[in-house]
């Protein structure tokens, strides 16, 4: 047994050495974005239209926008939004070496083809579609749904088509992963919860919370009546989940039509009333043929249904900025034809360009608000508030749990962690992410709702094993590599800052950390010099990474 254990240890060590050798060497990279944007639809006009809207608004409201953001910070924003992590040193070097025109645009199109994007966004979309609950055993497969979403994103599929597939999917939850949108609603009594499906459908695809109308008319919004909710739930009444998968059964075992029945609370089932499927507006958009679910899906995605495009535009805006255009992300005001806003413009262009999420992402990334600094040019709180309300300054938003650990993990290495990384590194990343998010606290499907930090989270980041292991000067780690490979201490500090904060240090920061590395305990007292041993230098580097990991700049999108 002992020999086996030794053999295993030696094997692991050999693998680690291999990885270390592969990772060592120059930190430049062959990362290369396309030379031009010909492969991507030309969105210059739509972006100009959107930005004109913002400029007009700022002029009308006499708001002075914040200054432009520098391109490295823009790169960090894109990486956080699309990959859930800060950029690697490898990518930063390649980005800086690229001096061709339209650098951000070209890099963005490359990022949209990266599997890190499709996997990360699939996770985010899955949360809006099925939440984070475990779901029914066997018949709900979150992993299959997520993989399917990732494939769709890789193919840059139409969101309308994906939506129709999700609502009307038939088949097994494994073969037709979209069917998991339905199977998660199966209750313990083996029936589907039409109310849950209706509530989720309206929230996710139409950006409207009307769950309370399940029991009574909406208390604050006269548009939504209880009958509207019941009518929407009725579209799901013929859906059925069996061992053969999801199907629609228009007739029951007695060959009678399956209808939706509502039993008033506290009453016997004999008192149930039949509710026919209905929609709260534009009945004419409902096609005459197809299953009930197909007809509902076609009504939701109807080209004139502005709520559909506004809902997804708001969610993508939220995922890009960390804060939706309208909060909460799934409860939008009614479309107003007399007051066009950014969501209307985004929605219209989204419709005209294949209803693809990449179009929304590109337009938002190139929008004026995304290209503004987060540093307010205002002098007072009032100035800042006006800027923030007009999106004339990039909002400061705390990173979400998965972005924190994604960034910690990436910042602890010099090369990007992606699908071609060594399996051991990918396994470690997966383990770290799961463990960290569990301990830190998962924001669940409310991840776009602003949340304050907690003491537990701060203690975990300061003293937990994640920061400790990722800042350690040890075989395979980024801190070790830059300590050994950086030509001098100034470069070392530059590299550490780039890895963690995607920027170079200020003169003050450079001085303080340089003094620490050179054994000067007091920056202004050059006589107090004590040469450091290698071990002590390693500790200084670890402490530098610790400070960078725990800084507010690391923890916030800015």
């Amino acid at each position, binding site marked *: 047994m002992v020999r086996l254990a030794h053999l295993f240890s030696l094997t692991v060590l050999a693998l680690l050495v291999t990885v270390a050798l592969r990772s060592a060497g120059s930190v430049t990279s062959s990362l290369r974005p396309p030379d031009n944007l010909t492969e991507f639809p030309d969105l210059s006009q739509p972006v100009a239209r959107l930005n004109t809207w913002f400029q007009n608004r700022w002029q009308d409201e006499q708001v002075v926008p914040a200054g432009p953001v520098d391109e490295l910070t823009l790169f960090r924003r894109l990486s956080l939004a699309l990959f859930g992590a800060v950029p690697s040193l490898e990518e930063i070097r390649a980005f800086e070496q690229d001096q061709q025109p339209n650098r951000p645009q070209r890099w963005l199109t490359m990022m949209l083809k990266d599997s890190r994007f499709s996997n990360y966004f699939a996770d985010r979309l899955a949360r809006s579609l099925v939440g984070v609950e475990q779901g029914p055993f066997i018949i709900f497969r979150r992993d299959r749904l997520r993989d399917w979403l990732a494939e769709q994103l890789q193919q840059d599929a139409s969101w309308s088509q994906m939506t129709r597939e999700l609502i009307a999917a038939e088949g097994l939850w494994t073969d037709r992963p979209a069917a998991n949108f339905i199977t998660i609603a199966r209750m313990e009594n083996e029936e589907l919860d039409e109310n849950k499906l209706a509530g989720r459908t309206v929230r996710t695809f139409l950006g409207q919370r009307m769950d309370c109308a399940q029991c009574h008319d909406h208390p604050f919004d006269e548009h939504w009546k209880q009958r509207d909710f019941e009518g929407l739930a009725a579209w799901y009444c013929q859906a059925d989940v069996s061992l053969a998968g999801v199907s629609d059964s228009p007739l029951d075992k007695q060959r009678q039509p399956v209808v939706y029945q509502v039993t008033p609370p506290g009453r016997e089932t004999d008192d149930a009333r039949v509710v026919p499927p209905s929609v709260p507006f534009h009945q004419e958009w409902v096609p005459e043929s197809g299953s009930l679910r197909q007809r509902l899906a076609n009504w939701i995605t109807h080209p004139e249904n502005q709520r559909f495009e506004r809902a997804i535009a708001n969610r993508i805006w939220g995922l890009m900025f960390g804060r939706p255009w309208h909060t*909460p992300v*799934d409860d939008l005001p009614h479309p107003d034809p007399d007051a066009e806003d950014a969501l209307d413009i985004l929605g219209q262009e989204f419709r005209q360009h294949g209803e693809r999420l990449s179009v929304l992402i590109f337009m938002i990334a190139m929008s004026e608000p995304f290209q503004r600094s987060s540093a307010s040019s205002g002098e007072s709180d009032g100035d*800042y508030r006006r800027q923030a309300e007009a999106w004339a300054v990039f909002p400061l938003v705390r990173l979400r749990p998965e972005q924190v650990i994604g960034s910690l993990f990436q910042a602890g290495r010099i090369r990007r962690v992606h699908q071609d990384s060594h399996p051991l590194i990918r396994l470690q990343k997966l383990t770290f992410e799961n463990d960290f998010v569990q301990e830190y606290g998962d924001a669940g499907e409310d991840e776009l709702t602003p949340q304050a930090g907690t003491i537990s989270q701060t203690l975990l980041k*300061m003293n937990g094993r994640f920061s400790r292991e990722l800042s350690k000067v040890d075989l395979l780690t980024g801190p070790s590599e830059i300590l050994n490979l950086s030509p001098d201490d100034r470069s070392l500090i530059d590299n550490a800052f780039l890895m963690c904060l995607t920027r170079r240090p200020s003169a003050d920061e450079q001085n*303080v950390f340089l003094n620490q590395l050179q054994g000067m305990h007091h920056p202004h007292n050059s006589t107090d010099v004590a040469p450091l041993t290698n071990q002590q230098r390693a500790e200084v580097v670890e402490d530098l990474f*610790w400070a*960078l990991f725990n800084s507010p700049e690391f923890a916030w999108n800015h």
Partner: protein
Amino acid sequence: MESLNLNRRHLLQGLTTAAVSFCLPAMSSRAAQRRGAERPRSLIVLWMNGGMSQLETWDPHPGTPSGGEVTDIATTTPGARISSLMPQMAEQLHECLLIRSLTSKEGDHEAGAAFVRTGYRPEPTLKYPTLGAIIAHELPQPDLQLPPYVVLTPRIPVPEGGYLGNAWNGFRVFEPGSGVSNLNAGVSDARQTRRLEGLDLLSRQFVQRQGVAAGDVLQQDTMGRALQMMKSEQRRAFQLEQEPAALQAAYGHTEFGRGCLVARRLVETGVRVVEVMLPGFDTHIANHEGHMTQCRILDPAMATLLSDLRQRDLLQSTIVLCISEFGRTPRINPAGGRDHWPGWFSCVVAGGGFRKAAVIGATPAELPTGEPPVPEQPVSIPELYATILTLMGIDGRKEIITPIGRPIRFVDAEPTGVLLTDPSLIKSI
């Protein structure tokens, strides 16, 4: 009505004067020294996770169709008999109010726990704060260097602040009695000083660069409080070395027993709301055996907690509530288990002004057919919580404007004097 919008001006004043200041001086907690009625009230929740069977604990029906293998014993409350699996609690029941008529409509663990923890049925679009979060939110304690709401639990998601915000989530302690995870820097003082020097510089530079926008960052800074807690003497409350071995043995050498002892120490230190969780009550199979195991843990710990609090003159100011997300079915299934039963279930509440040596509610012994009948003298969870909040000095009717603009009361019920030793407390508080 109170809005949750924070005052940015106040925060910005902090920004201009203090920038980022981490190391706050330690402060004493005078309130923690008080005893008896003078002392501000605290709450200890003993959470029986998984759905405790009322029939094997507080509401046995031996020899009836629903009774199963249970036998009962007399208690120090005249006329009240509880399960013989709880002999030590039988000796302490004169300190307690036994409620046998709690009701719920949520028979799923997640939904049941959400309802019993918050007093509201769960909704997909609004998360309600737990009772503990409300208390922590409403009773700020400047002298306290520990989190205001501590949850001693090895797992399960932490109880949340809901619409009040994450800041009011329960602070989780994974291994009660073994200190707190991540509370030690793990490096020498010299290295910690160097780290903080670097961090302080980075923080100041960031704030400087962001200008007035940095108010949002400072508002959410928890670093100062975390560092304060790392240095505080009060953190000894999480440790048990100073407790006599005999007392530790009386609580029981179990995670839950240690949790109850830590809960007492936290309350003594000034923490106003603590929850200790005992998992393992989801006995769909071999229910009686399962409860025999659970009661061997619960009985000594809870009984010792009550007597310990009394001896320290803390029971008058400490409400101890033993509760679960629902009860278990009167019918025993073919696997010898009992399934989920929100129709009626029991809780025990002691101290803090609740009635002593009393029983409220009664449940039928026969197996119900169809919908469960309402138990005698039903007590609703919101009613119980409204009463607890009132005893804690909090107006449960207070409305909060939630982040989605909807005004919500902390509890949608009135407090009830029938649960109290002195019903006039409801009016006088």
